[in-house]
């Protein structure tokens, strides 16, 4: 394969809104495809075969098969899940880890059967937004849990790849910074800085800063 073609083999970065690695890993999930050809032993024309998603996409783009939507990706299953997400505080665990990426990939093109891909996509987007909002609202609770418990851990059952990519780095950074600040606060001697120093935010260095030159206080 020459290099011009090889760029088409891997998922394009940013194509489905999540990171490249997430969509790469999502493509390894097994999915059913109905091939139009026969290549023993796996592919028999008309018989659903279980292959990784990247193979299924390859066959579909070459018009050699049709992808069967996974059973969780249907209006009947997604509407109750959306209701459940809206009413219950915990995240649902009935969706696969890469549900968002898989949906983005499978609902790109019009389908052979009469399922409407846009409806599915909108449902999954709504589910995603509700879950993200729920997680965001629980952030203060997470911080409180981290502080109080003997074993500082927070349970997040049912979290999926897309929410993790969106909120994960921020949350972990925030927890780390908070731990750093608390640690600093415990170890510093609390000496107030010079009153004439008006500018500057709070310093997180242990020792108070004593200016060598008296700072001017500007009067308006």
């Amino acid at each position: 394969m020459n290099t011009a073609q090889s760029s088409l083999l891997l998922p394009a970065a940013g194509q489905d809104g999540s990171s490249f690695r997430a969509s790469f890993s999502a493509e390894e999930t097994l999915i059913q495809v109905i091939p139009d050809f026969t290549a023993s032993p796996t592919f028999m024309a008309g018989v659903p075969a279980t292959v990784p998603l990247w193979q299924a996409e390859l066959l579909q783009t070459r018009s050699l098969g049709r992808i069967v939507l996974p059973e969780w990706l249907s209006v009947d299953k997604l509407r109750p899940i959306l209701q459940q997400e809206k009413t219950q505080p915990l995240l649902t665990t009935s969706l696969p880890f890469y549900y968002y990426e898989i949906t983005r990939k499978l609902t790109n093109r019009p389908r052979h059967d009469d399922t409407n891909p846009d409806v599915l996509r909108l449902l999954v987007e709504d589910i995603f937004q509700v879950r993200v909002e729920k997680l965001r609202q629980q952030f203060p609770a997470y911080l409180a849990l981290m502080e109080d418990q003997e074993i500082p851990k927070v349970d997040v059952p049912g979290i999926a790849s897309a929410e993790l990519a969106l909120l994960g780095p921020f949350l972990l950074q925030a927890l780390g910074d908070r731990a750093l600040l608390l640690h600093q606060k415990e170890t510093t001697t609390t000496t107030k800085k010079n009153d004439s120093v008006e500018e500057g935010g709070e310093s997180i260095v242990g020792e108070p800063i004593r200016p060598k030159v008296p700072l001017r206080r500007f009067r308006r």
Partner: protein
Amino acid sequence: MFLASPSGLRTKRGAAFLFNTTNRQFTMADLYNLLDQLDHDEQEEEIIQEEQEWEAPVETAVLPADLIDAQKRQLADNDTNEDAKEVLEEDSPYLRLRNVWSQEVNAPELLPFDEDVFQSIIELIEDWEQAVDQCEDNPVSALMASITSVQIERAKYVLCDWLATRLRKMEEYPFYIRDYKADCLSQTELSHIQAYCNLVQKHLSRTVLDHFPQEAWKELPVEEPNFDYTYVFVKCLAPTTIDKDPLERGDSLIIHYSKIRDSLRDGDLQILAS
């Protein structure tokens, strides 16, 4: 007699006799020739054109190992499970590479180098490349070859990303890793980190350290990575306890990194993202 024997029909001469394609009168000599031929041609039967239309040729193709695995899985388990990682109990090198890769990408520190995974994935990629080179001319084999070449590209990407992540982590704290964590590296990584440390040391000495007035300042301070403020998302693969708190399989949680280091080494947990 001669018409009753099935082989008589299948030979070209027998068919010509039957369908009289040569348009000439057949003599007894021809009949005897035919009988002689029948006796001799039993071992070599030529399949005539009509015969070929009756039986479709079975197209066998060189299949990549993953497709055979997928078929085994399809036959083995009947209930569909969307989370394929949990269903997949088998130990293909590509799956192990992906697990090692995802852990290395998400973990804050450098994990031990898995030599087995590296060797087995190199061999697997070579096998696949050979299979692609040896593919036959028919379109089915060409399709299988293209699927295998996509598989090769994906495996190469995972391998390169894994090694690049390790390299990035190594170059963050080179001196610390060279001195204390040399057992986590492969041979090539070790030689690289030694050369890298020498270069950094020389560079810093020439630019800064040699110009310091005091002798005590001329040593290079070694930075140690600090994980006091690192939290990670983890998922439980096996029931385990952390600080006497039992965790079941399938739990996801946010936790301080130091607490799960040992469980990570044992393989009970899996880091989801960091």
